[in-house]
């Protein structure tokens, strides 16, 4: 069962009116994978997730999630203006399909999915009732999940009074309440502190170890490093897909160096290095810089000069470097 594909999209297309949000993308995610979905804001990540969760019908293409397949016929669909219910659809009916998928997937959206003016317990009660969970099953799941996230506050605490990190963990528990096979996490850690993000990712890894499939988007590249595979999206298209190490090799075939300025650089000096002939890539990274050599010959000629300004050491490119080069399409 390890290699079983649980999320699959083939030639998935989503249009909002004239705007193509997702442009014929295809991918397959296996059970127990942590699959990262990266891209600039507006690249089509959230739209894709909404289709996979059964919240938005695709304009065309095939989607199969947890063994349930569905597709929308080619007819362009005004998904924004009109919900798909009752429209002409393929065998099975969209609405029925959508209901079944919701029992198999959990979804934690970008914005908080909990009500701030309800207590933790009331929020969970409410979600359990949406899923029509039997009381005994619900109480057992709630207990398991609160232990899973090491919840030390009270069920009677208002969600609005929790810190951002704890709130995110409770949101995760809420998304997992009905014991879905697959969980979609859309920027789950935006605005959470570094320590809170670490704790959250420990939970994500444990979910995957327990056979859950995790589909996650993030703008934090240190988090993306922890994904098994990553898909890079740009303008609705999937431009690369590989493990973090594989993506680094693919996007940076040439050697990469860390440049540590011996004295601080002014803004104009920094700008001049971005277009310096020795580099095919030059980007700030904290107070240091990551650079790729344009070619061996120019590098050999210019390196002695550069060593008077920077201390230089070879490094592996970071995923942030990969993101910038791949998404921006800069030289």
């Amino acid at each position: 069962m390890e290699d079983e594909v649980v999320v699959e999209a083939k030639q998935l297309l989503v249009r909002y009116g004239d705007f193509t949000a997702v442009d014929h993308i295809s991918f397959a995610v296996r059970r127990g994978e942590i699959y990262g979905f990266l891209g600039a804001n507006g690249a089509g990540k959230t739209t894709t997730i909404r289709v996979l969760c059964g919240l938005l019908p695709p304009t065309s293409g095939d989607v199969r999630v947890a063994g349930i397949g569905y597709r929308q016929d080619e007819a362009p669909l005004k998904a924004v203006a009109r919900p798909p219910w009752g429209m002409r659809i393929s065998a099975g009916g969209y609405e029925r399909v959508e209901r079944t998928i919701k029992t198999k997937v959990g979804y934690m959206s970008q914005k908080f999915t909990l009500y701030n003016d309800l207590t933790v317990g009331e929020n969970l009660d409410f979600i359990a009732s949406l899923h029509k969970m039997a009381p005994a099953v619900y109480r057992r799941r709630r207990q398991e999940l609160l232990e899973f996230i090491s919840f030390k506050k009270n069920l009677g605490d208002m969600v609005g009074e929790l810190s951002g990190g704890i709130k995110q963990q409770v949101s995760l528990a809420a998304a997992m309440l009905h014991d879905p096979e697959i969980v979609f996490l859309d920027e789950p850690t935006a605005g959470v502190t570094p320590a809170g993000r670490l704790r959250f990712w420990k939970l994500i890894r444990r979910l995957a170890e327990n056979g859950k499939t995790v589909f996650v988007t993030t703008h934090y590249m240190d988090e993306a490093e922890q994904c098994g595979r990553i898909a890079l999206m740009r303008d609705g298209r999937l431009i690369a897909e590989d493990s973090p190490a594989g993506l680094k090799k693919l996007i940076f075939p040439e050697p990469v160096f860390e440049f540590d300025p011996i004295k601080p650089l002014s803004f104009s000096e920094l700008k001049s290095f971005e277009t310096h002939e020795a580099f095919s890539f030059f980007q700030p990274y904290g107070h240091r810089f990551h650079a790729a050599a344009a070619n061996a010959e120019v590098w050999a000629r210019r390196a002695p000069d550069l060593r008077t300004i920077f201390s230089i050491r070879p490094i592996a490119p970071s995923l942030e470097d990969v993101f910038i080069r791949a998404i921006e399409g800069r030289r």
Partner: protein
Amino acid sequence: MAAGEPISIQVRDVHKEFRRFEALHGITLDFDPGLMHGIIGPEGSGKTTLLRILLGLMRPAQGRILYFEGGRPASFDVLRPHIAYMPQAQSLYPDLSIEEHLAFFRDLYGIQPRAYAEKRAELLSVSRLAPFVDRPAGQLSGGMYKKLGLMCALLRSPRVIVLDEPTTGVDPISRRELWELLYRLLDQGILVLVTTAYLDEAERCSKVHLIESGSVIASGEPRALLDDQKARSFDELFLRRAAGSASE
């Protein structure tokens, strides 16, 4: 170019009692012009409270904020129009386009047509938002939305700009573009005050002030602070601290 003399701010022993979170217990800091000051600290440490007090949106329970113009004491009321603020959750008008936002703030601030035309062109060019001027704010991506917020704040050429987590939820490329916009301001002698949860950004500040539980625990140039703590990066420093207090 910011008209008028540079503004600096001194915070002296500021206290604020405020529910459980975000209290301040005797903050003393100097914010000099032409520098990017990063205020770094865990959630609930008091960063936003400090910013709100600096901006006159809240009174300290104890202590003083001193404002200076060209090195001479000045009253906050006189300087207020020259201090801009970009809050964490900024509310722009979802159904107004970028162009309409700029025009709205032009009228609100009473900016003269010629000055406006120049400023508008400059901001659209450095923000790379020129192709999107007709797009409503509600349809902008997270990064573009933040850039529009910054443009509206910069429209009247402030001498101080205060930004509360400007890059949260913004992709790595837009994040760099926002920082480039901020760096440009420094060359004009503007005082930039920024909070961030991204520790690589902390390293790009001229000075960082680490705040924990309402007190300043360290303050200085990032390189010096890191050398002092024998850490290679702020990421490393914070992970070490987090490991030390994993019980939160």
